[in-house]
Structure formats: C-alpha cells, structure tokens
C-alpha cells in the first residue's frame, strides 16, 4: 500500500513537471462510450464510468491542452487475476503528439517511477527479469499475428479469432524480458483512434504489454465526428443484438469531437503498474478490498 501511494506521488510529479493539469470528471454519467465488450454498471438510468475518456476529450475541445486524471472505472463481468470490476485508470491527453508519443511518454513515466522507487530499469516480475530500458520494442499487429498465429488480421478481419489468438498465441510470443508495444490495430478495432492517413485499413492505436500484462492503450485521437458516430452506432447495434438492450449515444461527446484539436491520449491500468512494480501475482495483492472481500 505504501508503494502504491508512492507510485501515485511520483506519477503526479511527473505530469506536473511536464505542464499537465490534474482534473476530476464525473464517475456517474448519462452515457458511456458504446463498446460491445465493455458492459457498464447501471445507476438508475445513468451509468458508472468505464473510462474518463469522453469527458477528458470534451475538455480538450474546450481549449485545455494538457490533462491527466487518475480515476476509478467500473466494468461489469471483469474479474480474474488481473481484473477487478472496479479498478483505477491513469489517463492523459495532450494537443498535438500522436500514439507513438504517448508510448514514449509511458516508457519515460514507468522508468522515472521505477528509478524513484530505487528499483532501477530492471524489474523482477514473477521470477522474470524484465529490462525496461528505452527504446521499448515495437511490432505491428500484422507482423505479430503473422509470426505467432499465421494469419493477417488486417487483410482478413476476424474479431473472434483475433481475441483468442491474441491471448493464446500472440502475447505468449512476446519476449518475456522486455516490454512489447503492439502497433497499428485493424481499422475495425480502432475504437476512438483515427485511421492511419495513408493506410486506412489500420488505425493509430497502440497497446503496451509488460510481463504478460496489458498495461496501456494509446490513440492518435479521432476528430471526425461522423466517423465516431458511425463506429458507436455499429457497437450499439451489436449490443442490442447480443445483449438485448438499448444503449445511449453520447451526443454531448460527439458534439465536442467536431471541435477537437489534433491530439493524442492514453489509458494506463494503474493497478497493473503497481502489480509490476511490487511483483504482485494478482490484482488482489495491490487493492485494499476487491469485489469479493468488500
């Protein structure tokens, strides 16, 4: 717990030094970003926030240019060694920059914290020595899947096979002693990221994995409100088909997207970061009370 508190302190110092403002946005919200695989908790017709992203982007659209937030997020049905339905996310956004910049910032953040904790750039996680030195190894989704699973999800999209192979073949194929950055997700999995300008079959979305844990998800943010609305609509329809209930379109957010400056952002699992720096096997070791013990 002490180390977790220090990690928070060092995180705040890191962002303050770079001119980022810490903010708080609503936890109980009228609409969440429609995503078929993320199920929000309901609170009397409203919802518990699954990510502060929509609000932080509304602030960027309103003129703020460097923001960060450490906030509690809630996702139904997510419980396991690395998941608790209630968890903590660190998200930061800036005008300018792109998803690669966000990855670079993350690497510097993690190294800074490790150094201040006295750990240095080499951590020991579950008996595996992991070297966090820059630059962090990067690979594209296309290459990683071709090498580890034998197919290309960019030219032959297959969402179910993607999820299974990612977990059973691709992530296990990453070098265990270094972080891995997975870049350029297929366009259909762009979520709230923009498509690559010269290559619209891929999106500027990156995910960072360390020690087998998914640590962070970075975007070059999408600024096309119609495209965002179209993507949300696809999700809403899928949710209606599979889960049989209607989910709200986040209109206020979409209005703000039209005014978004060129920007980038990232969401990092704070509990996961603490797990890595405390050599914790399970999220239960870094959280005071999980959903089972609360």
């Amino acid at each position, binding site marked *: 717990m002490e180390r977790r508190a220090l990690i928070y302190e060092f995180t705040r110092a890191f962002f303050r030094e770079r001119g980022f403002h810490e903010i708080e946005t609503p936890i109980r919200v009228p609409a969440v970003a429609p*995503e078929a*695989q*993320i199920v929000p908790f309901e609170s009397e017709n409203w919802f518990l926030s699954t990510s502060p992203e929509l609000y932080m982007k509304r602030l960027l659209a309103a003129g703020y240019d460097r923001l960060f937030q450490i906030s509690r997020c809630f996702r139904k*049905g*997510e*419980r*396991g*060694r*690395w*998941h608790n339905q209630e968890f903590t996310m660190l998200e930061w956004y800036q005008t300018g920059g792109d998803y690669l910049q966000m990855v670079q910032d993350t690497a510097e953040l993690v190294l800074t914290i490790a150094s201040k904790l006295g750990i240095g750039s080499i951590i020991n996680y579950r008996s595996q020595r992991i070297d966090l030195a820059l630059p962090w190894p990067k690979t594209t989704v296309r290459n990683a899947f071709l090498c580890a699973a034998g197919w290309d999800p960019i030219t032959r999209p297959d*969402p*179910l096979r*993607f*999820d*299974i192979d*990612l*977990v*059973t073949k691709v*992530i296990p194929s990453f070098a265990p002693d270094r972080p891995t950055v997975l870049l350029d*997700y297929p366009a259909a*999995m762009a*979520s709230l990221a923009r498509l690559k300008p010269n290559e619209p079959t891929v999106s500027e979305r990156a*995910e960072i*994995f360390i020690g087998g844990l*998914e640590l962070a*998800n970075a975007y070059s943010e999408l600024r096309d409100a119609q495209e965002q609305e179209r993507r949300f609509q696809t999700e809403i329809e899928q949710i209606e088909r*599979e889960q049989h209930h209607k989910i709200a379109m986040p209109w206020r957010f979409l209005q703000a997207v039209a005014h978004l400056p060129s920007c980038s952002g990232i969401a990092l699992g704070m509990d996961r970061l603490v797990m890595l720096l405390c050599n914790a096997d399970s999220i239960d070791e870094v959280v005071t009370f999980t959903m089972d013990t609360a």
Partner: protein
Amino acid sequence: MDIGDVRKGSKLLINGIPYNVDEAEFMKPGKGRAIYRLKLRNLLDDSTLDITHHSGEKVEEAHVSNYEMQYLYNDGEHYVFMNTETFEQYLFDKEKIGDKKHFLKEGTLVTVPMMGEKPLGISLPTFVELEVRESATTTKADTITAQTKAAVLETGYTIGVPTFVKEGDIIKIDTRTGTYVERVSTKK
C-alpha cells in the same frame, strides 16, 4: 452454465467425462472479448486438459455430489467402502486407491465424489491417526545426534518420526504430505 460462472473447483462435463476445474484464468486484452483459459483434471483417470472459451459460451456442468464413506477392508485387488447413510458398498480397484492405501485402516472415513451412481475416487481426511507397529529403540548415543528415525505404521507405511516415539504409540499424520504431525497417545 455460462462460462463466466465457472470457477476453480467447478465440475464440468465434456464428451461425457467429468472434469474438475483446477485453474481458471480470465483474460480480456484491449477491449476485446473475454477469454477464459481453463486447466481441467479428468476425474476418472486424473489426466489433464487445457481448454479455451470466449465469453458468452456455455459449458455443461457435471453434477457431482460428495458422500461420506467408511473403509471396511480390502481383498488385495479391491478396496471396499460403505456409504455411512445408505450402507451401500462400493468397490475401488487398488490402482484407483494408489498411495492412499497407506492411510486407510478399518473405519477410516473418506469423502467420495460421485457422478450419479459412479464413484470418482476417494478423498482422504487431512489427518489420520495410526499406531506405530515397529520402531527401533534408540540408545542414548542416537538421541544426541539423530532427530528422526524410521517407524512402520499399522498400515505397513514407513514414516520418519521423532526419536521419542515408540511402538504402540498413536501418531497423527498429514495425508497431504505423508508426514508426522504429532503424537496423540503413548502406550503405557
């Protein structure tokens, strides 16, 4: 049952065979579907099986109930147990019993998981108390240096015991490790 409800210890039926879920891992990278990776143990032959399911899939639950049974005797090939409530008797091949035979004496109570009428194995109590049949007496010289000596129990099992344990003593054994825990009573 829905795959999301499966936990460590759940019993699943796959192709007619009951399995115990030894481990269940929940993975959900990058806003994708939840993936469940299960390590299963075949309850009939103890072999292992790894399976992967995604969220929304259903799996069949094996209906396994536990019954208390008492060990009666063995005839060399089969071990006979009796359900303490129904008095029905069940035979287990000596292979199925395996090393557990070292801790069975007439009257020992065990737990038997059953699927319908089919017993799946026996589960020993954590501790059993057995009498020491043979144990070398130690001389003064031995007790200064050695801390344990060999003893043979009434079941024929050889175990390490502290040197003060003598023939006729009853000792408590941890069946999980097959080791001495403490002396329960001593022959006067």
